[in-house]
């Protein structure tokens, strides 16, 4: 008798998703799916609107990663209007972006992934949350996380106008320069951010790397896939979040391709499945071979682990030391999905160091921050590395700059096929003979939570709203039981 277990929506995940696990007569997993049940329609909504509105419109796709959409939209406008921003504008944009990255990566590690590792993957659900985390690491550490986020958000408001929805990106630059008298404050917060990132890595080392059981989970076969990896790199093939070429490495870690943003359609295409609204991008030249890993499958990964694999190192010294340690410990390329959490902390340190470099760069405070566009808009592509992976915006307009076509490939889409592999493999590895409990389901969820996926849900939690249910169905899909997590 087939049983069907539904987890809907997924806990600790930005946006709504649903996991369906189908059991066979023996109670083992036949197939596990990650479904995205929502259709957002933002691309359609964009048609007929002025292109200049896109950084603001797309930043409202969800309340979690607005700055990434704002920055991708702004870069797309540069391309669309064929205009190059002044150096100061590019530096301010990157500075703002690194601040956003620090805040976002910190949120993920301490608030979302942290409870899994610091409190423990098999801890009861009542403890596996931020209160449980604070109980483990102490009030002082909790205050450090909250305090760091507050200082970063204050700077975001100062530089970008708003923390949640930036309003400073314009084609050819930004709306206002940073005054030189802000330098001391930005540099001070940057220095604190470097210490904060090192604190995060120390917590990870003390709690995770020194725990044999956790390391066994991280390196276990059920959390491992040998896929291609894609990420943005600078001229030296070092990780870059804001600008550069896209680099793809194969499952052996060798460079497979390198391309500019404008050429993404020649390199990445999307596969459609009937059971999900999300499309599954894959490498065009390799082709779609189904949900399988290996060199003959075009499935690739993005996000922190992929970025570190796709690059040859980090562009800042402290992050480079951590990168070397990471690769030495895990082996290059790193195929362990749960290693995303470690990679994320290394990126957090890089972002903090890069913030410090930009904060101390006199050119960041140059008043010349706008090149006025003079050419007729046509078509533009803008790519940034969002915290959750490669984010692609592509707009076409008429000669008045009105959007006629928009295409967005968000980070979670780029990772969708690998996430599907991860959910299926983890479910098969963890569920046996019908034994399914809260701890096991959480460990299945950990397989995709490591990617920090975002399904772009604009709805926010309503007070008292219960977001998680587990349904068990028999082979005729009749409900056998309902578990409500509350």
């Amino acid at each position, binding site marked *: 008798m087939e049983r069907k277990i539904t987890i809907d929506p997924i806990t600790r995940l930005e946006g709504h998703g649903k996991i369906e696990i189908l059991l066979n007569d023996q109670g083992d997993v036949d197939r596990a799916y990650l479904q995205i049940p929502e259709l957002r329609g933002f691309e359609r909504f964009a048609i007929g609107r002025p292109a200049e509105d896109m950084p603001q419109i797309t930043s409202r796709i969800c309340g979690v990663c607005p700055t990434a959409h704002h920055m991708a939209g702004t870069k797309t406008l540069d391309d669309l209007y064929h205009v190059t921003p002044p150096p100061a504008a590019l530096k301010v944009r990157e500075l703002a972006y690194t601040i956003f990255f620090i805040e976002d990566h910190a949120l993920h590690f301490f608030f979302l992934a942290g409870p899994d590792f610091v409190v423990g993957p098999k801890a009861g659900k009542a403890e596996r949350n931020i*209160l449980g985390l604070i109980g483990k690491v102490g009030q002082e550490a909790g205050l450090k996380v909250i305090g760091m986020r507050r200082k970063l958000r204050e700077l975001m408001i100062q530089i970008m106008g708003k923390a949640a929805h930036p309003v400073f990106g314009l084609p050819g630059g930004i709306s206002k320069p940073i005054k030189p008298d802000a330098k001391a404050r930005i540099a001070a917060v940057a220095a604190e951010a470097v210490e904060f990132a090192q604190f995060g890595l120390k917590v990870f080392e003390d709690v995770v790397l020194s725990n044999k059981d956790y390391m066994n989970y991280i390196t276990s076969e059920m959390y491992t896939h040998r896929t291609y990896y894609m990420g943005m790199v600078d001229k030296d093939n070092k990780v870059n979040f804001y600008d550069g070429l896209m680099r793809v490495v194969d499952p052996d870690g060798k460079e497979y391709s390198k391309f500019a943003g404008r050429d993404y359609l020649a390199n990445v295409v999307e596969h459609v499945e009937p059971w999900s609204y999300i499309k599954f991008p894959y490498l065009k030249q390799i082709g779609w071979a189904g949900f399988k890993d290996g060199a003959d499958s075009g499935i690739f990964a993005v996000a922190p682990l992929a970025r570190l694999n796709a690059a040859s190192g980090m562009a800042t010294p402290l992050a480079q030391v951590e990168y070397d340690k990471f690769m030495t410990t895990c082996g290059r390329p790193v195929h362990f999905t749960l290693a995303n959490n470690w990679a994320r902390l290394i990126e957090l340190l890089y972002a903090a160091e890069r913030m410090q470099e930009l904060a101390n760069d006199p050119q960041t405070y140059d008043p010349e921050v706008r090149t006025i566009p003079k050419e007729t808009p046509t078509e533009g592509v803008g790519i940034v590395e969002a915290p959750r992976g490669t984010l692609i915006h592509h707009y076409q307009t008429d000669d008045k700059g009105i959007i006629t076509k928009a295409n967005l490939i968000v980070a979670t889409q780029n990772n969708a096929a690998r996430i599907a592999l991860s959910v299926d493999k983890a479910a098969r590895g963890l569920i046996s003979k019908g034994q399914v409990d809260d701890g096991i389901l959480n460990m299945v969820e950990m397989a995709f939570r490591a990617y920090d996926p975002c399904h772009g849900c604009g709805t*926010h939690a309503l007070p008292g709203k219960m977001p998680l249910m587990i349904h068990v169905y028999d082979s005729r899909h009749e409900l056998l039981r309902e578990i409500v997590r509350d």
Partner: protein
Amino acid sequence: MKPLVLGLGNDLMGDDAVGIVAARRLEKDMSNMADIRVSNEYGVALLDYFIGYESALVIDAVTLDTRSAGELIELDFDDLRPVRGISPHYAGLPDLKALAQSLGLAFPDRVRVLAVQIDRPKTVSAVMSPTVEKSVDLLVETAKACIIQWTDESNDHSVAGKAV
């Protein structure tokens, strides 16, 4: 101390904008009596807004099975249930208060929620449905009354304190 008025929602998601629209109207008339803020964030990300205030009025949209679109719902803090154990992104007000208390941060003693029942929370649109649009006037007036009441109580308390 002025109370906090926090309008929540997404102004590109049709009816979900109702809290944002109401807060922006309050900003014109009531900013001398309250600190008006808007956000489309949720969960733990909202904690920063509340810290340091004694009173907070949250204006939001809701989708409840038992209510009709456009209906105004008033909730006090004690009416809210914690969702602790689920997700920091889905954390509700009781969870934020528990988190603030665990960190020794000052969370408002007095929290009230004014919410409008909406129809289509996931429809991408820059305009609200006519039914919800009509509810904005009542939402704004109710919020004003709450702010005035809290301000009067605060002044009375202050005067009484001086008399003592």
